[in-house]
């Protein structure tokens, strides 16, 4: 339900905490590959930059999943987990922070 009303109450705290920066690694052909990569900045990016918007939204999703798991929730019952699994294309994935695996999931 929080998703319904979130936009009504603005939060103006931007970039105040460095926080953790989770990375989504997906196993493709036996190799771990990063799935959420910073897009290239193009000359018209001020006017049209959907890749960056999606990049930020994906990172927010990973951070939210991390917070929910850290709070003790069972990942399998989380919407965030289902969305990250979808982001990983239904493949085996792991979430890492500073190179350390914090969450792993089978396809």
């Amino acid at each position, binding site marked *: 339900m929080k998703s319904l009303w*979130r936009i009504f109450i603005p939060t103006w705290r931007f970039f105040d905490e460095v926080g953790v920066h989770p990375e989504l690694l997906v196993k493709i052909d036996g190799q771990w590959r990063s799935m959420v990569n910073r897009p290239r900045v193009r000359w018209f990016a001020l006017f049209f*930059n959907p890749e960056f918007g999606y990049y*930020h939204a994906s990172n927010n999703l990973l951070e939210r999943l991390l917070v929910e798991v850290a709070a003790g929730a069972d990942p399998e019952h989380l919407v965030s987990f289902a969305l990250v699994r979808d982001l990983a294309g239904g493949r085996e994935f792991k979430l890492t922070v500073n190179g350390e695996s914090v969450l792993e999931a089978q396809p």
Partner: protein
Amino acid sequence: MIWVGRLISVAVVLQTIEFFWVRPFRAELLAPEFPKILRWILKMDRAVLTIRLLAAIAALLFPSAALAAILLLTTWMVAIRWRGTFNGGSDFMTFHILAAWSVSLCVPSLEKACLYYIAIQLILSYFVAGIAKILNPSWRNGEALKTFLTRSGFHLAAGICVLLSWVILLFEILYPLSIVTPWPFVVLGGLFHLVNSYVFGLNRFFFAWLAGYPALLILALHG
């Protein structure tokens, strides 16, 4: 208020065109978070985006209370589709400027109050961000900015990061002075968002905040 309306319509046009290029979260995965009665919103994203784009183009040419209300409603529906917001602050600013603009078009006698609301949100957006940052030691010693820049692929010397951090902190914390001398803050704010657009890919912030500046200028210069 006419310029606020035009600029926020431009921001909504650009945002909506971007949304057509982005794959949203799958509706069936999001559904458990929503009451059954509202789940239809999750399946309507293309229709909502089309209505939003057409309404924003129309509002740019022929602003009206009905079009502003459609933009407000569709902005809320898009936000729901992304679990509250797509890009945080830019969605908040877009929504609250649209809300104020809608009210001013519905009740013209409240126009000045709506301009105040936008100006207050604009000032708070910098001031609150600045206070939150200065309370964090890693912002005061430049480490936070260095980390954010490194994550974005930019590498600056530690001394430059400390200097830039303090420029940002002072700019944000002193932003309430914009009600007395608005132009320096509006120009610096515009540059700030341009740099953020290039470095962090936050292009949506530039247009959303740009739409709020006329409210600040009108109140600061004409009372």
